[in-house]
């Protein structure tokens, strides 16, 4: 036999499903957002963990930022003898150029392009599969081409489609990289060891190792990444190998990564993205929860006669609550299931929103677990939001079966002040065990949901606290606005007074409506303000005199030729040209640094990153010495300066934030590894650097003379006039193909594009919050539709025209929109200020046009929503309504 609560719940739901449409929607929108984000997170997890070896390219990866040393090579050779397969991949940035007659559209297409070059051996990839069009073996596609190009030698190359589009090339087109000529033999579709394509300097080009040698791009000090991927024999222990390799290669400045911690940065980024999107989803669910609470409250009010009947038949309050709680949970489960379906649909749309951030081949496969989790989350939220309104069942007296029109509680209540009313509620709560237990249960449910969604106790508590604060602030703001409204003397227009008093009448759900819409407005205001500020920073805050080009990998023997080229192509344009060496930090104050100890830690990258070190005789512009003294070789005043550099430790000036994170002070010594050779320096000053100047700036600058004999290269910056950019780039590629020219504007454009795309994805979800607010509003309006219908009928019968009634309704809904908009925008400003000030360390600027547009849009949204909820009521003939009383 079906239990009574379930039977009643099912019958009620089936018989009056249309009454619960908005409840379903309230839950479904929130669950949908959560499910979509969860499905995406599961796909990320699958893509990263499911194919971790493929993503790393091996079981273990050894990577160097320079050519491997003989000692390192000896270690690798010894591994080959122990049944370990090693694949060698070299990555570097390079300039790809096409002959002028190949590029069809000379006016609009550049003939050179910065690319991310990847040289592969025949074993690549050890894991996963490379997808290329046409689907031919890599060896076949990259092999030397016997027929040759116009120039010899000639090799096959695989390129990303974006390169072909930018340079207007096709399969079979020729391309020059360094000293080698290539024919594009394939289009890269999927690279197994690269999941995200957004954060790159340029399109990928894959060539063979033999071709890389021919390009002559790898020279001393070149900015390269040598990766050796190891495939371990089956049944060997990973940790054992990691331990051995770390022990044998630690002095070599190598980064050792196992497949278990592959792609840590990307993983962190996607984890954070899905976490924040998930929390927006939870916000939507909680806003929907306000709608659930209103619907249940309205439903219980309508069901009072049945509740009273059940009580007369011997049901006690707990039994009746059980019946209606079952119904609420049933409704919540149905809404959650609908949300699961909605989420699956939204999930399919995610690639569109995150286009360019996630690869096109990213798996978008729905899985069951996130949907089931969504249903559980939705049902739990329904429980939390329906429990309190269900407590009202306790106060339904069975005597209402024969005295329905008398609300005894209201009848007995004396008019009380606001403070007395609230105090009495608190007192009642304190003395009522059921209310206390229910409050605890609701709090537990909501905190549980927040912690579950945030995957962290502290973040869950913080989120729930912030949500509570937002609710309290919205309530306080609305109360103040109501107070102001009640003290304004309105002109003697009945409909205006009717509209404003309607807002404040009990049971009108004005505050829940304001809350639901206000939270959406707050979220949107915060996101838009933060987005505008960050985009302004990226797009407009570049100083007018900032360089437009960075040139890297200039060899010492190209120094004079490079200067000459700049003077010919951009005469009278100042430029900076400085020597640099690439180093890794291996020790502080004589204590060796183990990079493994700092991986994944906050600011741990200060210990694990590569440091490009330069030398300057005088303090660079945009730098201020905050501690110690800058060296001044022109005034040999101190005894230290009298010592030749060979007899003492060279001095280094360190950027102050780096010094703080590395725990350095004046006098600390640093051991830097320059291509396997230790280089010990002593900290003599700390500097504050204005990174926003976009000038050439460094974390570490050593005193002149320190780098004598080191494997230096040069880097240069120049502010190239727009019209001279392409001619200079082409001349550079032609004369010095190994020199890489990075266009600052292109890089920033790329960052801005990704950021905009990301912001769009987040805003789309936040928009769902606003839509949920609108649904809550319609739900709240529909609860009182019979009361409204009755009032409208009376007003019509008394001669109120449709226009006047519309005016009254418009005033009521417009005021709700105005209140929600004002309070939501106010809170959004506060929240965005906090984020920008504390998190981004940026200045918050008020953007009046954006805020006013937001307010106007909110008022329009509430007007539209209000009319959607009431327009049918206006068309009922008054007589038919009044006769049915």
């Amino acid at each position, binding site marked *: *036999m079906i239990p009574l609560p379930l039977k*009643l719940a099912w019958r009620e739901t089936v018989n009056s499903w249309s009454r619960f449409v908005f409840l379903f929607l309230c839950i479904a929108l929130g669950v949908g957002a959560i499910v979509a984000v969860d499905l995406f997170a599961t796909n990320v997890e699958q893509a990263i963990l499911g194919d971790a070896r493929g993503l790393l390219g091996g079981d273990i990866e050894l990577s160097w930022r320079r050519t491997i040393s003989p000692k390192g090579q000896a270690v690798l050779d010894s591994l080959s003898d122990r049944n370990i397969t090693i694949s060698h991949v070299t990555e570097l940035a390079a300039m790809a150029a096409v002959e002028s007659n190949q590029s069809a559209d000379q006016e609009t297409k550049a003939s050179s392009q910065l690319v991310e070059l990847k040289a592969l051996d025949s074993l690549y990839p050890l894991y996963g599969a490379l997808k290329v069009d046409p689907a031919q073996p890599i060896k076949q596609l990259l092999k030397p081409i016997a027929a040759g190009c116009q120039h010899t030698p000639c090799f096959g190359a695989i390129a990303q489609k974006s390169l072909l589009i930018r340079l207007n090339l096709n399969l079979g087109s020729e391309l020059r990289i360094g000293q080698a000529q290539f024919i594009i033999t394939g289009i890269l579709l999927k690279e197994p060891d690269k999941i995200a394509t957004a954060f790159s300097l340029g399109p990928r080009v894959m060539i063979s190792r033999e071709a890389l040698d021919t390009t002559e791009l790898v020279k001393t000090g070149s900015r390269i990444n040598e990766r050796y991927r190891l495939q371990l024999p089956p049944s060997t222990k990973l940790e054992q190998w990691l331990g051995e390799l770390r022990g044998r290669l630690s002095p070599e400045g190598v980064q050792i990564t196992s497949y278990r911690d592959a792609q840590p940065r990307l993983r962190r980024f996607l984890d954070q993205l899905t976490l924040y999107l998930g929390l927006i989803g939870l916000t939507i669910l909680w806003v929907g929860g306000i709608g659930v609470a209103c619907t249940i409250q309205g439903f219980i009010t309508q069901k009072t006669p049945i509740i009273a*009947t059940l009580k007369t*038949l*011997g049901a006690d309050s707990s039994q009746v609550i059980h019946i209606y709680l079952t119904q609420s949970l049933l409704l919540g489960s149905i809404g959650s299931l609908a949300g699961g379906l909605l989420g699956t649909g939204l999930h399919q749309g995610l690639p569109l929103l995150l286009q360019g951030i996630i690869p096109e081949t990213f798996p978008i496969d729905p899985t069951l677990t996130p949907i089931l989790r969504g249903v559980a989350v939705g049902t739990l939220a329904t429980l939390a939001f329906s429990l309190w309104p269900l407590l009202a069942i306790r106060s339904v007296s*069975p*005597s209402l079966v*024969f005295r329905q029109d008398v609300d005894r509680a209201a009848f007995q209540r004396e008019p009380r002040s606001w403070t007395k009313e609230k105090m009495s509620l608190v007192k009642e709560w304190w003395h009522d065990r059921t209310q206390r237990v229910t409050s605890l249960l609701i709090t537990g449910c909501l905190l549980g949901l927040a912690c579950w969604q945030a995957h962290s106790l502290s973040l869950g508590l913080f989120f729930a606290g912030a949500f509570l604060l937002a609710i309290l602030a919205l309530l306080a703001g609305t109360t103040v606005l109501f107070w102001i409204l009640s003290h304004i003397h309105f002109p003697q227009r009945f409909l205006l007074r009717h509209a404003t008093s309607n807002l404040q009448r009990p049971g009108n759900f004005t505050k829940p409506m304001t809350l639901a819409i206000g939270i959406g407005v707050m979220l949107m205001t915060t996101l838009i303000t933060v987005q505008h500020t960050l985009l302004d920073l990226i797009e407009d805050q570049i100083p007018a005199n900032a360089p437009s080009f960075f040139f890297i990998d200039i060899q010492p023997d190209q120094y004079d030729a490079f200067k000459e080229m700049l003077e010919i192509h951009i005469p009278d344009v100042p430029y900076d040209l400085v020597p640099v060496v690439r180093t890794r930090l291996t020790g502080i104050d004589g204590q060796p640094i183990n990079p493994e100890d700092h991986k994944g830690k906050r600011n741990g990258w200060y210990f694990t990153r590569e440091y490009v070190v330069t030398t300057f005789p005088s303090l660079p512009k945009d730098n201020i010495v905050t501690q110690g003294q800058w060296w001044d070789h022109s005034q040999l005043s101190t005894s230290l300066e009298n010592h030749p550099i060979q007899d003492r430790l060279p001095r280094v000036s360190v950027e102050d934030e780096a010094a703080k994170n590395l725990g350095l002070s004046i006098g600390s010594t640093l051991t830097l590894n320059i291509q396997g050779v230790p280089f010990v320096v002593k900290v003599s000053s700390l500097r504050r650097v204005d990174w926003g100047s976009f000038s050439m700036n460094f974390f570490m600058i050593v005193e002149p003379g320190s780098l004598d004999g080191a494997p230096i290269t040069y880097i240069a910056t120049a502010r190239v006039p727009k019209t001279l950019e392409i001619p200079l780039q082409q001349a550079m590629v032609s004369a010095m193909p190994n020199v890489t020219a990075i266009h600052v504007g292109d890089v920033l454009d790329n960052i801005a594009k990704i950021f905009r795309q990301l912001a769009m994805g987040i805003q789309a979800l936040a928009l769902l919050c606003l839509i949920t607010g609108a649904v809550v509003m319609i739900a709240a309006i529909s609860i009182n539709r019979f009361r409204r219908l009755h009032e409208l009928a009376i007003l019509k019968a008394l001669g109120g025209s449709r226009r006047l009634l519309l005016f009254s309704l418009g005033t009521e809904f417009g005021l709700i929109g105005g209140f929600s908009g004002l309070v939501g925008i106010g809170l959004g400003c506060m929240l965005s200020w906090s984020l920008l000030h504390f998190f981004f360390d940026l200045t918050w600027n008020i953007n009046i046009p954006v805020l006013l547009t937001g307010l106007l849009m909110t008022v329009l949204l509430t007007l539209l929503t209000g009319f959607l909820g009431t327009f049918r009521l206006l068309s009922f003939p008054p007589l038919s309504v009044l006769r049915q009383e």
Partner: protein
Amino acid sequence: MHLSAGNQDVHILHDISFEVPAKQVLAIVGASGSGKSTLLGLMAGLDRPTHGSIHIHGTNITTLAESPMAHFRRQYIGYVFQAFHLIPTLTALENVALPLELQGVSTGEDRARTLLQAVELEHRFHHYPIQLSGGEQQRVALARAFISHPPLLLADEPTGNLDSATGNLVIDLLWQLHEQHDSTLVLVTHDTNLAARAQRILTLQDGAIVNDTSLIA
């Protein structure tokens, strides 16, 4: 009994004192507003007197808290309303079985079938209240009131919403069930013919008993 409105006391019933022996049929009559339904509600424990006590089957129901009162009502009291008060989403059979289901009795439907047959509604087991006529709805309500064999049956204007022919049929069934179940029957009515079928008539006026007449010795 007192009900307060603001600072003003409204006395609905006062100085009411009477006993109803087991199995007696008592009719309460009086003009509208005399307090008949309120008195019946008090006897059912649906309301509480501001002063005084009510003892049913040896229990002072005025001292019972909500839950024990509900429990007591389930076991000892059946109630028939003027407006039937059937649950619209339950079938006739389910409505009748409802009091037993609330007691956690699993065989409620078997007993409900028997009672519905007794009120001649065996062809309406699976009909919803909206599919039944007023008389049929009241017969379902009668069956529901008797399902847990309550020693006390309270009926508030049981024929008030019915035409006279249907009303007579319902009253015949009510008497029949009362006799079968040996219950005490207290009914509130305006109908003098119906009151005349009772063993005793209690007349209320302005909240007080003005007449207490036994018709059968």
